[in-house]
């Protein structure tokens, strides 16, 4: 953002110096030039009378005054915007300029990690998305702003829970056990956990730069294997103080429901309901949900002068979940300031962000209760109290949701500062320091429910994830004749701490003693705590050289050392090498329609050490199951090894090759890029089976096996219609990614012994529900993509309604043979269109995935007639002919290809408003429709296995344990329904 301003200001100055004095004319024309996207005034725009050398430039408010013949034409040009010709008019002329979309923009600057580069000089696969292209309206996680916008970047928000973490995949999956989300770097600071990004207010973000290929990400070394997303927050600009307000309010509603039997349906399906019929007619899906409201407000004040700038912003948001009692409330404060001293040679920056988030979580077991409860049961008794009932995995979900509470209070503080000093014009030294503190306080209470016989429970827990990071760097940037050299060398030190403690109890004599945890049955009081620390120390360097803006070479090397890996592999090297050639000048100098064209090739090595815990490498003992000491009647802890140590653990290594082509045609009207990559990840970390004994664990975390990610990405951007009043631009991207496990065999070492593992397949995901325990259905298997399904083939039912699999019933063959089915998508794509007409803008973003399959575990459980009469079923259960117990088969593995209208926004900009230089109102919709054959609630589910959850109450809260390509986790029936959201909002910049 601020670079653009800098350029605007410099152009303005240059033009002031060189534009000829105005000649005598017969008409004085006045006008104002604004940005067509947001209506903001543009200073320094060149306004020229066509066919003459008469011209002027706009002032800081975008106004101009020029003498011109009444029949003349004005030519308006400005770097970064499309040229425009306008007939002279005597009335004040309001002229809007459209930013030009050229991908090889001469001036655009992108972050490449520990520095920036001009877009045209990039040698790696890096994509930049500015705030003007963000998805608008309601979002759960700021990365949702990017969904569908970047080829190769797949962002999945699994369900409508405002507290769910997004799954972000850049160029597929390259780890089986480690984190899969790209590294997120905010203003130069690597977030300790990519999920912390969920707590950053979305309105604070100015742009994203996505480092896609291994050579671009290699500067992040042992943590770069999943790619890198660099986030730049909004900054102040030189000029008078600017106050902005961005706000929206909206409503969300569930976008799809299962077709469960109504009470009338149940009564006709089961004529003799007897005691099961309580005379009610309850739609439990609707009973636990609501129309949810949300609001978001951000106020910022920013400004600066030639030597300094600042921005301070405050953000408040409150996002209700559609499920009762769930939601997220957030208050954020941010400050960023920069100032220069010592003849502008010293540059000091400081950023401070503090976000307090309050989450109201719900127990996902309530979704099972919702599906299981008969529609003939009421929610409440006539006197208003809850109607209580209880059966296996069944209770009143409304009561459970409303009467329990699970709150998380999260406090994220990011503090960073930097100093840079220009020793000479070419040589700069600097240092940065950053402190991150993330404190999560959990507080939960489960009351005694009448008739259920359960005991009440309460607990509080605190988790701290803190880090201290610093770096020291030297930059040398020099141009010699046609050669430009940029050199960076740096040292970095990162120290990470994690700690927690919790206390919980049960059997409180009255409710509301959850703030007096020790007052329950002291036998059941629990205390626990943990603390861990690890460090990463790095040295790295980058050399970028270009000759004549035509030939480019970039090389980087990073050396990372960490306490996480085994003692034998502390240090690792991560190099990269890129070349690029802009060949318009040499080969197509005379081709007018070709503006620019560049070919790139790169090779890089990145790593992933997420799968290795702080102490996984070491032989440690810790408290294990208690034993009984009959003499004292006590239960001391036994002490035993806590893990199978492996002193030879090291990072997974992704070796990536990428070739790419960037182009701009027809004066920027059509631009785009394409990339082909072929990456191989070796030393895959997973838990491999080992013989026990002699081992005392049956798996060891080891670096064994390899996998391949290959893909092709194409992104196009076009200005389809360009006129004085009407503009239509379109962006589209598509990516084909093929991920395959090559092998899971290899050797590992413990101590000095070398052992072999040869895993033909490792079970990962399970079908869940009653009668479905120990039922693995997805596997890691060489030759297939991760989480390949292995399922019996459903071949209809026999005369008695028994399911057959390859022609045989379960009675004939209790163990039907499985077949491998690859669930991974063939390609994913996104299309964004935006239209400007006068003051109106309309944009819509479509996003889709083709060839994906999802296992509909909810239907497997619920579309089963044998659940009647006690548990409700879908209408399909009455008609699908299946009369026997559920069996996980390919019948439930559904085509989950989809096309979603992700985002649509209609905006109107008011011009010439007395109090605001920019005033825009908009109406936005999110998830307006989805076209899919998938029969479940929504085809987007998590595509990796992630663990997590609440320290206090296990994994059911917030649906923390998800299964790849399987729609639900807890009891097979816990998918927080996706929502459709409509918002209205305002963006205002006050005068």
């Amino acid at each position: 953002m601020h670079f653009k301003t800098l350029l605007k200001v410099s152009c303005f100055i240059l033009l002031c110096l060189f534009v000829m004095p105005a000649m005598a004319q017969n008409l004085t024309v006045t006008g104002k030039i604004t940005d067509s996207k947001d209506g903001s005034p543009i200073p320094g725009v060149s306004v020229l009378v066509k066919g003459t050398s008469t011209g002027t430039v706009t002032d800081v408010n975008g106004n101009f005054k020029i003498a011109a013949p009444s029949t003349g034409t004005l030519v308006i040009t400005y770097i970064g915007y499309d040229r425009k010709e306008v007939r002279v008019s005597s009335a004040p002329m309001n002229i809007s300029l459209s930013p030009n979309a050229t991908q090889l923009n001469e001036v655009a600057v992108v972050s490449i990690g520990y520095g920036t580069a001009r877009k045209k000089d990039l040698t790696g696969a890096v994509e930049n998305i500015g705030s003007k292209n963000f998805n608008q309206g309601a979002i759960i996680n700021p990365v949702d702003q990017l969904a569908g916008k970047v080829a190769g970047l797949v962002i999945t928000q699994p369900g409508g829970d405002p507290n769910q973490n997004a799954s972000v995949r850049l160029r597929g999956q390259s780890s089986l056990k480690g984190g899969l989300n790209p590294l997120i770097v905010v203003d130069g600071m690597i977030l300790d956990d990519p999920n912390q990004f969920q707590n950053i207010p979305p309105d604070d973000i100015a742009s994203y730069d996505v480092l896609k290929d291994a050579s671009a990400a290699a500067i992040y070394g042992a943590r770069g294997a999943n790619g890198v997303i660099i986030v730049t927050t909004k900054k102040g600009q030189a000029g008078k103080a600017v106050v902005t307000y961005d706000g929206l309010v909206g409503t969300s509603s569930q976008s799809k429901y299962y077709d469960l039997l109504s009470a009338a349906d149940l009564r006709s399906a089961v004529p003799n309901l007897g005691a099961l019929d309580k005379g009610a007619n309850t739609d439990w899906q609707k009973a636990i949900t609501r129309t949810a409201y949300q609001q978001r407000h951000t106020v910022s004040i920013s400004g600066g002068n030639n030597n300094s700038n600042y921005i301070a912003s405050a953000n408040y948001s409150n996002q209700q979940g559609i499920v009762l009692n769930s939601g997220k409330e957030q208050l954020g404060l941010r400050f960023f300031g920069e100032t220069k001293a010592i003849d502008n040679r010293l540059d000091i920056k400081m950023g401070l962000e503090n976000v307090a988030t309050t989450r109201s979580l719900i127990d996902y077991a309530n979704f099972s209760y919702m599906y299981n409860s008969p529609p003939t049961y009421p929610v409440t008794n006539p006197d208003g109290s809850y109607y209580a009932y209880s059966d296996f995995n069944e209770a009143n979900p409304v009561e459970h949701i409303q009467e329990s509470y699970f709150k998380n209070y999260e406090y994220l503080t990011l503090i960073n500062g930097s100093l840079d000093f220009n020793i000479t014009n070419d040589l700069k030294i600097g240092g940065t320091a950053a402190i991150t503190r993330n404190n999560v306080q959990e507080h939960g209470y489960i009351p005694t429910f009448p008739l259920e016989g359960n005991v009440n429970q309460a607990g509080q827990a605190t988790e701290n994830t803190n880090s201290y990071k610093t770096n020291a760097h030297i930059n040398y940037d020099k141009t010699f004749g046609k050669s430009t050299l940029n050199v960076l060398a740096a040292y970095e030190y990162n120290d990470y701490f994690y700690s927690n403690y919790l206390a919980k109890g049960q059997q409180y004599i009255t409710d509301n003693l959850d703030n007096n945890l020790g007052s329950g049955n002291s036998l059941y009081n629990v205390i626990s705590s943990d603390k861990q620390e690890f460090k990463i120390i790095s040295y790295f360097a980058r050399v970028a050289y270009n000759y004549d803006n035509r030939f480019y070479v970039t090389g980087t090397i990073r050396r990372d050392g960490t306490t996480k890996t085994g003692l034998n592999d502390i240090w690792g090297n991560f190099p990269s090498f890129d070349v690029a050639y802009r060949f318009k000048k040499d080969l197509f100098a005379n081709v007018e329609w070709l503006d620019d064209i560049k070919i790139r090739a790169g090779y890089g090595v990145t790593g992933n050490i997420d799968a290795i815990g702080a102490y996984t490498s070491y032989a440690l003992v810790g408290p294990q199951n208690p034993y009984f000491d009959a003499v004292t009647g006590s239960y001391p802890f036994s002490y035993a090894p806590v893990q199978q140590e492996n002193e030879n653990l090291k990072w997974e290594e992704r070796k990536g090759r990428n070739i790419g082509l960037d182009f701009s045609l027809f004066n920027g009207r059509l631009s785009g890029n394409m990339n082909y990559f072929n990456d191989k990840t070796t030393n895959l970390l997973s838990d491999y089976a080992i013989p026990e004994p002699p081992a005392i664990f049956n798996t060891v975390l080891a670096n064994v096996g390899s996998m391949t990610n290959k893909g092709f990405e194409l992104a196009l951007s076009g200005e389809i219609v360009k006129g004085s009043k009407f503009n239509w631009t379109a962006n589209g991207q598509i990516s084909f990614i093929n991920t395959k496990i090559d092998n899971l065999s290899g050797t590992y070492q413990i101590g000095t012994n070398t052992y072999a593992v040869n895993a033909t397949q490792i079970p990962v995901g399970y079908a869940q529900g009653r009668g479905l325990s120990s039922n693995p259905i997805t596997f890691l298997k060489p030759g297939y993509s991760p989480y390949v399904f292995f399922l019996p083939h459903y071949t209809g039912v026999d005369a008695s309604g028994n399911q057959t699999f390859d022609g045989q019933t379960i009675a004939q063959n209790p163990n039907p043979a499985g077949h491998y089915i690859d669930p991974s998508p063939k390609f994913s794509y996104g299309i964004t269109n935006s239209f400007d007409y006068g003051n109106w803008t309309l944009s819509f973003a479509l996003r889709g995935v083709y060839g994906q399959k999802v296992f509909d575990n909810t239907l497997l459980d619920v579309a089963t007639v044998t659940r009647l009469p006690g548990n409700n079923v879908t209408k399909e259960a009455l008609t699908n002919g299946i009369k026997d117990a559920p069996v996980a088969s390919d019948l439930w593995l559904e085509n989950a290809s989809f096309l979603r209208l992700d985002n649509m926004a209609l905006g109107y900009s008011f011009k010439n408003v007395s109090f605001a230089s920019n005033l825009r109102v908009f109406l936005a919709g999110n998830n307006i429709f989805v076209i899919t054959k998938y029969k479940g609630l929504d085809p987007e589910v998590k595509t990796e296995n992630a663990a997590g959850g609440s320290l206090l109450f296990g994994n059911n809260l917030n649906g923390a344990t998800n299964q790849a390509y399987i729609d639900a986790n807890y009891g097979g029936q816990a998918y927080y329904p996706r929502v459709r959201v409509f918002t209205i909002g305002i963006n205002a910049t006050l005068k």
Partner: protein
Amino acid sequence: MIIACTVTLIGGISQSCTNLNKKVYAVVPVGNFYQTPDQIAAGVAPAYTALQNLPDGNVMQMNEITSDEMVVPTRGNDWYDGGQWQGLWLHKFKPDVFVDGGWTDLTKGIGEVNFILNILNGLPNKPSNIANIVAELKVVRAYSIYQMMDMFGNIPLVTDFNTDPSKVTQSDRATVYAFLENELTTNIPLLSTTVDKTTYGRATQYFGYMLLAKLYMNAQVYTGTPQWAKAIAALNQVINSGKYILQPNYFDNFSITNDGSSENIFVVPFDKVHIGGMNWEMQTLHYSNNLTYGLTGQPWNGFCATADVYNKYDASDARRAQFLVGQQYEADGKTPLQDPQANLPVIFDPNITSLSDASGLFRMAGARNIKYHPEAGTAGNQSNDGVVFRLADAYLMRAEASMRNGDAASALADVNKIRERAGVADWTAGDLTLPHLLDERSRELMWEGWRRQDLIRFEVADGVTYFTGARTPAKTADGDTHTFVFPIPAPEILANPNLHQNPGY
């Protein structure tokens, strides 16, 4: 301020810039532990805690559901679970994750002891009673090795922690038999003969002799040669020690406070607060039975017994009360228990005609066993300690060995001790037959994890298809006797390609 920060940080960097030493906070490096007597006691304890999965886990289920005593039918949508429960009953054993659960529960006990022995062996200052500690550990380990050999036949016999895993191969039953006989006879004399709180839940000499007796009782199955006299000698060591008496009330051996039993020789202690894993009440009781017993969660309505089993008891047999049949009631003893989902009264019917039935009535199929009495205020994780060896089993084993060894009079005296305690008439010499003895073992040791072994032993000794024969419901006769051992679990063959699958699988 920023300058000050940076200066401080740069100063700090020079101190620590390449320091990658780890710091451990909440756990202890192996080398720093096992220093004090308390640490050694806590470090030896895993030999016992590793047994906590055995009395009520996959090992028990594999030894009972494959026999006539326990069946887990598929009730509506419940208890299909990939066919694993039906497969056990039908003897269609798969080398699946369930069978692997039994394998790993046993190898845990072996591996932990190997680890501890290795640590003790390397201690610079060994405790004065090191020989006794080592002997106790070896005898405890022998229990897991024995169970593994009994269930899986050809097993890896690994007793040294430092064994190269890639060199581990299988040993046949005869080899493991010889190892165990030597291991036990060598180490038993070093164990304690004290039977009081100091040895509760720990291996005494009598634990060792009971294990040795089990080995000898089944010697014919393992080696082809019976060892009845040796079995009697081992059992005499237990019975004649006078340290144990038959508990007058059979159920005192299994109650929530069964640590007071004078009959139990070895138990795995459980506790509702501290040591979880005894889930008997959840596994067998009907969903609604929480209202009967004051449980804090709903049971799972799984394990039950057929009429063939239930009808083995005389009406006067005190032991029959371990089974629930007929109408069940709420805690007041008056309100008939309902199954709200099936909309039927809860009337347990031991007549099970099918292995899978979706009808509401079938939810009530099978007699339920509350030998380990449910504990109010729990939902699983009961406090009843899990019984492994008890005196009644010693009497019944000695009776069988005596009879097979030609001493019917001794056999009759031993059996009648058990029958008298149960409140049923003494047997006459004419009643004392091997089939009757096998039934008496079932009545006495119901669901205690020995039935599979007993059926196989009697089948081998007497040539009657007690184990491999047909059974109601649905089980047909096995084609051959490969089902005497379970398949080697597939995950274990994956982990160690040296392992060969058992014949017939």
